[in-house]
């Protein structure tokens, strides 16, 4: 199998060369800071991902609300049901801001109730309210005005526009998702910056080592490799730890039935559980490139 050149070069830079590693002294007490940073950042990233995915799902689920439907529930004596339904439909047809309206059939009513009462429900024999589905135009109708006119036309009619209050929630959910994505990007950038700083500081601290290596004829690539390998491995192992703890954190969040509506969704579903495992290689990659950049840049200070 032939790999693309940038990848083979990256792999070559990562290939274990104990001798090139040894020429740079062990980094002492600050070494764990990179690992810790990567772990903390990955941990946060797992939550940002969970938040982003959950709010994405929420936004989709609530986007029914964006279809702008509401319901009119009509209770009337059996004899007047049909007449009042017709009157309401006529009223709605003349209401500005209403796109369409239609009465649900018995079959549809049964389908709605089935989850609660089972399939054998004799819908026809029950004094069930009639349901009229109203689809709103854009801009929508005036709720209070419609309520008043309904009261005049059919006193037993109740306009249920519950879907309306969901609309800002759906918007909030998609904004939350954007925030989550933004957080992921910020966390990634901050980590790249920190690894770059740590690598530069490490090169600075090892100025004599770098000078000696250059003097005996070491190429920049050779010197950079020792630093790049070190920081990439540290960031990668830190990210592994962070991802595991992040997953544990998401797992111990209360399940759907136990907690309230919003928190239930905060977690991963299906393939989503694999996403946190993408983070360590990604973090490794970020560390690889930022260390390489820092090293090759810093090395230019030494001739």
């Amino acid at each position: 199998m032939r790999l693309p050149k940038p990848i083979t070069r990256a792999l070559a830079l990562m290939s274990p060369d104990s001798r090139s590693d040894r020429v740079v002294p062990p980094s002492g007490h600050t070494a764990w800071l990179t690992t810790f940073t990567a772990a903390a950042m990955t941990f946060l990233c797992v939550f940002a991902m969970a938040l982003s995915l959950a709010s994405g799902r929420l936004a989709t689920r609530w986007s029914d609300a964006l279809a702008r439907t509401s319901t009119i529930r009509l209770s009337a004596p059996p004899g007047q049901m049909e007449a009042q339904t017709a009157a309401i439909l006529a009223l709605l047809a003349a209401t500005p801001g209403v796109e369409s309206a239609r009465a649900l059939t018995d079959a549809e009513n049964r389908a709605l109730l089935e989850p609660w009462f089972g399939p054998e429900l004799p819908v026809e024999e029950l004094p069930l309210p009639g349901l009229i589905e109203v689809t709103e135009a854009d801009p929508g109708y005036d709720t209070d005005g419609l309520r008043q006119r309904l009261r005049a036309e059919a006193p037993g009619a109740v306009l249920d526009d519950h879907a309306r209050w969901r609309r800002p929630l759906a918007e909030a959910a998609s904004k939350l998702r954007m925030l989550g994505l933004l957080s992921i990007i910020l966390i990634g950038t901050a980590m790249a910056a920190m690894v770059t700083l740590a690598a530069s500081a490490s090169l600075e601290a090892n100025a004599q080592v770098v000078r000696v290596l250059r003097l005996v004829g070491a190429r920049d690539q050779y010197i950079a490799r020792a630093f790049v390998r070190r920081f990439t491995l540290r960031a990668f192992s830190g990210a592994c730890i962070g991802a595991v703890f992040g997953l544990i954190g998401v797992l111990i969040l209360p399940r759907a039935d136990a907690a309230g509506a919003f928190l239930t969704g905060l977690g991963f579903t299906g393939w989503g559980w694999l996403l946190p495992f993408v983070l360590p290689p990604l973090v490794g990659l970020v560390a690889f490139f930022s260390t390489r950049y820092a090293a090759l840049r810093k090395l230019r200070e030494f001739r």
Partner: protein
Amino acid sequence: MYINTGKSWARGFGAGFWVQGDRAVIAFESAAYNYGGGELLSDVTLRLAPGSFHFLTGPSGSGKTTFLKMAYAELLPTAGHVTIFDREVKTLGRDDVAAVRRRIGVVHQDVQFLDHLPLATNMQLPLIVSGKKTSADDLNELLKWVGLSHLADALPPSLSGGERQRAALARAIIMGPDVIIADEPTGNVDWEMSLRLLTLLVELNRMGKTILIATHDLNLIRQAKNQIPTRVLRISKRRIQLAGADL
């Protein structure tokens, strides 16, 4: 007498002479160096012929180290040209500089090592960074030559100044470089060890290596002159001159 290789009088001194036609491992042409406070070295024109042996003398602060640094591409001349292995140093990229350093063994005045690695590893550093290996026999032989066999596993900070200089010389020659440049290599060693190091350098010169040594040890120069044809360059009034016969 200034060194002017282009002139006809400079030719025909025979093989081994430092000014020898157009063949040169390192060539200076009207080169100057200025750290910022005026020119320290001016109008240096000379060629180091392959296989030649040069000493460079001059009072402390006259610019010996500066001159050597130009000769191994550590410093670029602020005027004029320096050519190393037929390449103008200003055109050398970073990897080219690394390649040049693999062909020039340098013993610095302020010898530096990787302090966390034992002496033997430090001596092999030029080989390590260029992906080469040396046999244990060669290494032991070299250690014996510089009298450091008993310190192979010692860490550099525990060595004396003389031991460091000998180790640096060993490190400079382990790659089998074409040129060996040493900046006061006998500065911290006793006379007996100085002679031993000189013998080593003379031996290397007989093998065809080009040698350039900065020193103010006139006894060492006299000793060398007894063994091999050498030339002595002296820095005086910012110029590099060929020293007179009094040496």
